[in-house]
């Protein structure tokens, strides 16, 4: 990872505080335009951190489709009296549109800041910073091994699927046929992966995982002066937002 980048090189908890500020700010300032603006702020930060493509991909796939769905359904079905547009039993009401705007702006703001956080922060760094703050190394292990296990499991599920197909298990056809295929697919996957926990436990035990001593890490990241600067800035912004809200 290039350490020169202005966004990527920040300390993980600094990034987390920034994202939390974004997420909380939409609840401080109830205006929906502000919520949508947060998305563009996130987009800007993603651009600086050169992760625009992944960020845009995930927000469009995960957030926009859901937001559009919520927007359409809410503006039709939210109870209200000020009808804007009507066609047989369907009616769009002013109240529905207002509610939908408020709701989707919050979902987009909170969702896009979360997506941004995980694009600019490698999970490894994030967990490391939490461990420095006092998180148990066991929790670190759980998080990191989960992320490596999932792709591994996907591979083995593919292998199991191919093997069962070779043995004559039908995976296409009517619903009943596909339902019957379910158990032969799942059972070997669960049994083999659960059995592997025993080996993992012994391997870790042999390396002193359960020893009750403070553990050192071969991997380390440092806070810099810029982190403290940005933290102070974030606090100032938070205070300004609260003042703005009270003044309004």
């Amino acid at each position, binding site marked *: 990872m290039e350490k020169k980048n202005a966004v990527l090189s920040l300390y993980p908890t600094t990034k987390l505080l920034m994202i939390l500020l974004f997420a909380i700010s939409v609840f401080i300032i109830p205006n929906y335009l502000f919520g949508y603006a947060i998305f563009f702020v996130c987009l800007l930060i993603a651009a600086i951190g050169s992760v625009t493509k992944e960020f845009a991909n*995930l927000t469009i796939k*995960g*957030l926009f*489709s*859901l937001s559009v*769905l*919520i927007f359409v*359904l*809410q503006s*039709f*079905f*939210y109870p209200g009296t000020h009808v804007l547009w009507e066609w047989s*039993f*369907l009616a769009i009401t002013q109240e529905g549109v207002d*509610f*939908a705007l408020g*709701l989707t702006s919050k*979902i987009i703001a909170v*969702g896009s800041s*979360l*997506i941004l956080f995980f694009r600019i922060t490698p*999970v490894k760094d994030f967990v490391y910073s939490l461990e420095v703050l006092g998180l148990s190394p*066991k929790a670190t*292990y*759980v*998080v990191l*091994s*989960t*992320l490596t*296990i*999932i792709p*591994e*499991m*996907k591979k083995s*599920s593919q292998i199991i*699927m191919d093997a069962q197909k070779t043995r004559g298990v039908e995976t296409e056809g009517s*619903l009943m046929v*596909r*339902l019957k*295929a*379910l*158990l032969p*697919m*799942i*059972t070997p*996957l*669960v*049994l083999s*992966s*659960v*059995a*592997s*926990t*025993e080996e*993992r*436990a012994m391997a*870790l*035990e042999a390396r002193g*995982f*359960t020893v009750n001593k403070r553990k050192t890490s071969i991997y380390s990241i440092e806070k810099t002066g810029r982190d403290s600067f940005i933290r102070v800035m974030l606090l100032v912004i938070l205070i300004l937002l609260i003042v703005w809200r009270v003044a309004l």
Partner: protein
Amino acid sequence: MKRGLKHDFSLIAIMLIPIGVGLNVVIAQLVQILRLPIWLDAIGTIVAGMIAGPWVGLVTGGATNLVKSIFTPTELPFAISSMAIGFTVGMLSKKGMFSNFGKTIGAGLIVTVIAVIISTPIIVWVYGGISGSSASAMTAVLLASGHRLVQAVITSMGLLELIDKTSSVIIAYLIVNKMSDRYLSKHNYAQSFIKSNKKSKAA
């Protein structure tokens, strides 16, 4: 065997958490590949809860939604519901609700009720009733035909969760019963699944 928050997180139980999360994610994908009309996205949590108890189940459920939210942040609020499912299954396992098939179906119903009770407020408060899952279409239809929001969400969620959670619990029960006695004996809550125990009781 000692049970409780401090004793449940044995090393082998901790190893089960990432596996549970992985199973949740991978089985949900498998179900999509097979184009089945259910989710089955909690089997890993249920297996973990069954053999390693409520606390491990709770952590597995929570970790699943945390990991999912890295790519789809809209899953994050449902962490509470996943945690409740894991915890409930663990408690039911402690009470011996998985000792035979009939009781397991009862346990599936209890899990369904818990899932609906916890998920409904999340869907209503966080997403205004429409969370983008397959239940949303039904919710919308019920809303259009004049039902109240909470009622519409409970009806649509209840129906889908009933099918989804009971079949998840049954599948998990069938699979756990196929595990070896030697492995099950290492877990705190797996006594009711060990075959030699069952035989000695029958004799």
